[in-house]
């Protein structure tokens, strides 16, 4: 299309002075700008949902990065603890755990990770150390509970612990006890409080597929 309209053709010659100058300026801008682009039906239809998902996705990425960092800290703490304990020249050589169980978060705490170490029994009690990362903080006066699982069912409580905002990088370390005779195949889960506080609630950490 080569034909360009003149301002006289569009508005006549009657308009003069400042008003004509205003319209002349707009006329020139329109010629310079060219036509607006034709929109595809997709663009014409309006904004797409994924345009407004960016922030959320970014939040999830940040959350995952924090969870990975916390998990790395857990692994590092376990590694350093084990190294110090088993190094001949180590200052604090102590007993080796007889069992270490890796724990993964359920849907209730998808980013949570943890490790449960069981130490040699003393007077029929098995000391345990739970290290967990990224468990959500619970309401006041409510606690997570560690349950011994036998034959696929919670068999007995091994103690409670809580997560506070002062836990470094969301990592909690708690000392617990299993006052039971352990058997082959026993495992542990971490639960939220049940409705009455007396029975296990929903599981937040459960054994990972491959246990150490």
């Amino acid at each position, binding site marked *: 299309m080569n034909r360009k309209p003149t301002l006289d*053709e569009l508005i006549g010659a009657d308009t003069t002075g400042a008003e004509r100058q205003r319209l002349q300026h707009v006329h020139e801008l329109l010629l*310079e*700008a060219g036509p607006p682009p034709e*929109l595809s039906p997709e663009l014409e239809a309006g904004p797409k949902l*994924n*345009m407004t998902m960016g922030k959320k996705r970014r939040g999830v990425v940040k959350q995952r990065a924090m969870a990975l960092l916390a998990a790395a800290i857990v692994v590092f703490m376990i590694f350093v603890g084990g190294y110090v304990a088993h190094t001949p020249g180590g200052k604090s050589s102590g007993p080796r755990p007889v069992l270490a169980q890796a724990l993964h978060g359920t849907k209730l705490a998808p980013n949570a990770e943890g490790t449960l170490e069981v130490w040699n029994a003393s007077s029929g009690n098995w000391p345990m150390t739970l290290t967990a990362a990224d468990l959500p903080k619970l309401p006041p006066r409510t606690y997570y509970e560690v349950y011994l699982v036998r034959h696929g069912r919670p068999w007995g409580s091994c103690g409670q612990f809580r997560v506070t905002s002062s836990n470094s990088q969301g990592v909690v370390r708690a000392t617990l006890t299993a006052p039971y005779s352990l058997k082959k195949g026993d495992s542990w889960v971490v639960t939220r409080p049940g409705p009455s506080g007396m029975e296990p609630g929903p599981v937040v950490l459960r054994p990972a597929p491959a246990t150490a």
Partner: protein
Amino acid sequence: MRKNDGDMEIAIEVPQPRLRAVPSEPAPPDDSVTDAELLARVGEHDREAFEMLYGRYIRPVFGLALRRLGDRGHAEDAVQEAFAAIWRSASTYRPERGAAGGWLYTVARNAIVDRLRRNGPAYDAELPELISHDPGPAQHAEDSDTAWRVHRALEELQPREREVIELAYWSGMSQSEVAEYLHLPLGTVKTRTRSGLAHLAAALEGELR
């Protein structure tokens, strides 16, 4: 005139202007809310405000992307990214630092430039080994800015005014042909064209608030 059996039918291809549909009862654009107010609401994740802002800026943003990228597919992708960037960063807009239109232009341009960089190697491979006589980057930037402002201002017009302006400037038709095409008296077309130009002047002088 009756057509004889022996008459030869001649098909004349008349290019029809491509226009947006004009509603029979045109609703005036909702200019009671400024772009700055819309941006503030988008910053609080108001989807309705985002849709209104999209309606006002989709053509300027797409036009900018097309001029920079030269390919409709890439330009459409860049539009998605530009509006996603607007959604994400609207809360950072500060009215005291400048007009909302300028802020939107910067965010959209950055998203388009990012897309251009990602397309870089493919685009470089297609560059001809000839000295270009095209306008330089500064001229391109000025042209882009003009088109952005004008296309944004067009969105402020009543659909009836916008229709005659688009036909007058970009269809190749004379005013008489526009009148015939729209089945309107010539005087009505001239009146609408004149008022449309005056409204555009006001919108452009207001620098998009």
